[in-house]
């Protein structure tokens, strides 16, 4: 029942390595070549996805705002619905003058985009792209993801500091405060999925969501009460970690110009842009792995479609919802953003944690489902009502003028 297309990438790699081996190439070179090919493919696919995403985001945002998006840039004489726009953007970015302020910290200013991009690309190593298709099957894969992702915060600070610009420093500090605050619900939501699966390895978590209940219902974690809440928490925290709307205060053009990215132009800005989008895809991939069943198909008869198709299809769906949310919600103010993280998301993540544990220890039966729903639903209603009352628009009182 395994579709031959499913094994095609792996078989291709093995065929090429055997070909090289038949020429007498020693084993260790074959290992290195295999690693290089896998790394190259993964990075190539995600950079292609980044290019496609940059134009599709603009088109989807446009359609949601009742207008066309970019629909002109094509190839020679064919318009191709504007899908070659990233090529035009890339050429523009490369040919722009690279301005560095004279009083900026030259070394740190130069290194900040590099330090931003490297962790974003490194975290792609542990995602299971299909059955048996993990570039690095680490025992503590989820921990690796968050450990390497911490490098992004250093880069944001470096970018904000090195520009020697008050507003960049302010923007950088705000960005770091936001990233640190939202890291906790992110990690706790990931730990919930790891706890129920019993392992920190992404392939084990995907395998724990396999099988179909009653023959046709998928057993993904998102379809349980605690899993749904944890997925939403992870999703919101992921939006905040990648500085996407509605949490894009650090890089909104109307606040602080571009925050920590003000003094970057040309290709360095393109690298920041790339790092943000690749990080967004990586965290979408992790969400898909942890909660949406990874490369599993949703219904039994859809197993024919290759698993890597399912994985990338789910990533594209989650990315589409991120663009959808961007088209809908206004930007949050920094104090609202931080209050939301510490006073709503953090208690909800603890509630989801306890709910998942109760679900597991109550035997995973119908009573367990009801119990976990109650444990997660009651805090949600209480916290949500308190939160919306706290920030409700009330009559403005003045403290000093009377």
């Amino acid at each position, binding site marked *: 029942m395994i579709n031959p297309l499913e094994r095609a990438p792996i078989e291709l790699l093995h065929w090429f390595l055997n070909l090289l081996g038949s020429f007498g190439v020693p084993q260790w070179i074959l290992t290195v070549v295999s690693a290089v090919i896998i790394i190259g493919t993964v990075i190539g696919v995600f950079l292609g996805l980044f290019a496609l995403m940059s134009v599709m985001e603009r088109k*989807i945002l446009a*359609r*949601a*705002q*009742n*207008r*066309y998006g970019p629909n002109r840039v094509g190839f020679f004489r064919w318009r191709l619905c504007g899908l070659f726009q990233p090529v035009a953007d890339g050429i523009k970015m490369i040919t722009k003058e690279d301005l560095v302020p004279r009083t900026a910290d030259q070394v740190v200013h130069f290194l900040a985009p590099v330090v931003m991009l490297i962790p974003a690309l490194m975290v792609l190593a542990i995602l299971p792209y299909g059955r048996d298709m993990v570039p690095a099957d680490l025992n503590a894969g989820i921990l690796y993801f968050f450990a390497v992702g911490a490098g992004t915060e250093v880069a944001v600070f470096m970018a904000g500091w090195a520009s020697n610009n008050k507003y960049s420093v302010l923007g950088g500090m705000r960005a770091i405060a936001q990233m640190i605050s939202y890291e906790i619900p992110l990690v706790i939501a990931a730990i919930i999925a790891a706890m129920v699966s019993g392992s920190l390895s992404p392939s084990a978590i995907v395998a724990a969501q396999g099988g179909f209940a009653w023959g046709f219902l998928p057993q993904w974690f998102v379809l349980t009460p605690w899993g749904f809440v944890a997925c939403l928490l992870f999703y919101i925290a992921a939006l905040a970690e990648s500085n996407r709307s509605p949490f894009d205060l650090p890089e909104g053009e109307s606040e602080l110009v571009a925050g920590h990215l003000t003094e970057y132009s040309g290709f360095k800005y393109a690298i920041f842009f790339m790092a943000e989008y690749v990080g967004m895809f990586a965290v979408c991939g992790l969400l898909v792995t942890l909660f949406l069943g990874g490369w599993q198909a949703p219904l039994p008869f859809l197993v024919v479609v290759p698993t890597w198709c399912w994985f990338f299809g789910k990533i594209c769906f989650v990315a589409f919802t991120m663009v*959808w*949310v961007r*088209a*809908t*919600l206004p930007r949050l103010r920094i104090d609202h953003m931080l209050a939301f993280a510490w006073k709503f998301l953090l208690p909800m993540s603890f509630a989801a944690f306890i709910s998942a544990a109760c679900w597991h220890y109550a035997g995973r039966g119908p009573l367990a489902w009801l119990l976990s729903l109650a444990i997660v639903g009651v805090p*949600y*209603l209480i*916290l*949500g*009502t308190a*939160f*919306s009352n706290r920030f409700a628009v009330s009559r403005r009182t003045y403290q000093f003028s009377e």
Partner: protein
Amino acid sequence: MSFPGSGIVKGLAVTARNFVGSYFEKDRLTTEQYPEERPKLPENSRSFPFLIFDGNDPEAGMRCVSCKICEKECPPQCIFIIQDRDAAGKALKRPKVFDIDISVCMSCQICVEVCPFESIRMDQDYELSSFDRFGSLLLDKSKLLKSNTYYQSIHPTEAAETDARLEADRKKKEAAAAAKAAAAEKAAAEKAAKAAQPPEAAK
């Protein structure tokens, strides 16, 4: 039913309806894809002046008689007219050179208002970009002359009114000429009758 977060869900529903509707409902997207679709300009919109000719031959049907009123009345003085002279040096009722510098023209339409011969009107063409700075923005007579049918197509109401007025004037002139001819004929007939009568009276 408003649970905490229901506002966000309603917002997402609105955006989703916009997104899906933009593919199926034709009147959602109001974008005009220039240059494939040109915008429909209102009838009275104007860009720069042009000269009208009646009939098929631009030079022969030109309405302008080189009275130079528009040149004198133009506030930024962007019209340059040189009257045509025949071989003997006598002035003809047509311009030899009629240039309008549209880099100076401010589209005030004063030249149109003062022209007694309905020969200069405002055009609607706005795609006048050129590669050299001022050279091709000096329009000469050949570029300015456009037919009356073109004028009727861009300003139908105005053109109908002008044509009706010109037609009425022409009819009046014809009637006057006919009346004058009839009067002259009557006078000639009376003169002939008088010439025929006295010899009879003298008899």
